[in-house]
């Protein structure tokens, strides 16, 4: 893991958003869908801690993969949780191990968020 002053360890959750659903209707190969799912939401505290502004890029790293995405504030999130809309960006981070259930770890993985 990187130097603590440049990264924060959080818990990743993924899920649906209105924007993602709207983009899906237009087609998943269209720009609107890509913009809707190629982003992440952080608490304002984490944004401040990493000296990031809304729309800046950050690096998200889990034990399964790494992505570089634009980040936005969501005051409804606890300071230790990040939210990524479901889609190819989230899929690069989530776990493929289903613990014998068939369900991958779409929520609850540890993620390191750092400033590029």
């Amino acid at each position, binding site marked *: 893991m990187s130097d603590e002053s440049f990264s924060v360890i959080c818990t990743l*959750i993924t899920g649906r958003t209105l924007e993602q659903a709207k983009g899906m209707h237009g087609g998943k*190969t269209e720009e609107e869908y890509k913009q809707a799912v190629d982003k992440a939401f952080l608490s304002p505290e984490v944004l401040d801690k990493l000296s990031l502004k809304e729309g800046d890029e950050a690096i998200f790293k889990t034990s399964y993969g790494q992505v570089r995405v634009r980040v936005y504030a969501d005051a*409804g999130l606890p300071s230790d949780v990040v939210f990524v809309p479901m889609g190819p960006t989230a899929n690069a981070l989530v776990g493929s191990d289903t613990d014998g259930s*068939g369900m991958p770890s779409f929520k609850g993985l540890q993620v390191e968020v750092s400033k590029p």
Partner: protein
Amino acid sequence: MNVERNVVCTFCGCLCDDINLTIEDNRIVKVEKACGNGRGLFEGYDPVPKRPKIMGTEASYQEAVNEASRILKSARYPLIYGLSSTSSEAQRMTVQLAELIGASIDSTSSVCHGPTGLAMQAVGEPTCTLGEIKNRADLLIFWGCNPLVTHSRHFARYSAMPKGRFVPEGRRDRKVIVVDVRRSETAKSADMFLQIKQGCDFEVLLALKALVMGRSLDAVEVGGIPVKLLQQLAGEMKACRYGVIFFGMGLTMTKGRDLNVRGVLSLVRELNDHTRFSALPMRGHGNVTGADQVMSWLCGYPFAVNYSRGYPRYGPGEFTAVDLLCSGEADCMLVIASDPAAHFPAPAVRHMETIPVIAIDPMESLTAAKASVYFPTAMYGVDCEGTAYRMDGVALRLKAPLKRQRPSDEEVLQALIEGVKSC
């Protein structure tokens, strides 16, 4: 121009059946009463005939059937996946094909409410219809779900807002409580919001059950929620006339999975010693409930079924799509009305890129765009009739407001069955 009234919207498990569509020249030009997602489903849908594709190149229907049948027949471990956005008639045909080729068959349930199925098999299903909830429920708890985004008309048609027989004042007669990790859109419109610590649902549900049973807890807080607040919630649950817990993927996708849902179901079972209480999963895709129903009638199990020995075997974690792809076992995949390339973890998608994939879908999804064989089909409930099951298990007949010009999913599956038999 004509207006088709009371059309069923098949976008989500609400299956709202009051949609009005204005149709001109076999195109939908106006959509009334639908939510944004429903409008997205109907608006812009073009029923014109489209040619199938083999390796991205247009081909005749018969050529595509022949190639897909050859792939299915020659596979050693075929995987069939999807089913939740097609009619129950097509789902039934899919099970027939799975049995014929000795495939593993799995629905999108495995990556949404599959763990709920496991919990129901262990505890039972304290269920009810959305009609009962509309007419009777005075306490609504939404746990790990965000219906204002995912099921936009749920509040208005079935749960929080409608005036019912025993709740004549609608929203004023009901209390809405949200339990979630984040202050979601739904949480903002609730009377009470409990912000739970991520991954602590099972502990909180167990603590609530203990409180409902009259036990005391030797703790100040559980899962980030003060015990005093949990005591208040337990009291309100016992005191209501008719309560419901709606639960979503906040429970099924997080640590504990089916154990979290067991927590909900056993809490509700306990509450029925005090009052009337039910639990209902917020089912996502329009006919994912139908996929569980049809698979259960025909195979005896709701998802994760394997036919390689000629009879159905059940194996979540073994015969589920993500597991079969990540282990590299599946050597061919037939996808019906679903888009795993957009929604599966990257290692599963990477394996899909190494095996022949056959896609049957009205829209050219990310899966269809990369498929070895792609069949563009009619959309159920738009230009194809059929049956779908609402999230509460109520079956609805789907009309076809547009004239069909493409084959239905069912017709393609029938052709594949015949094609495999003649290979």
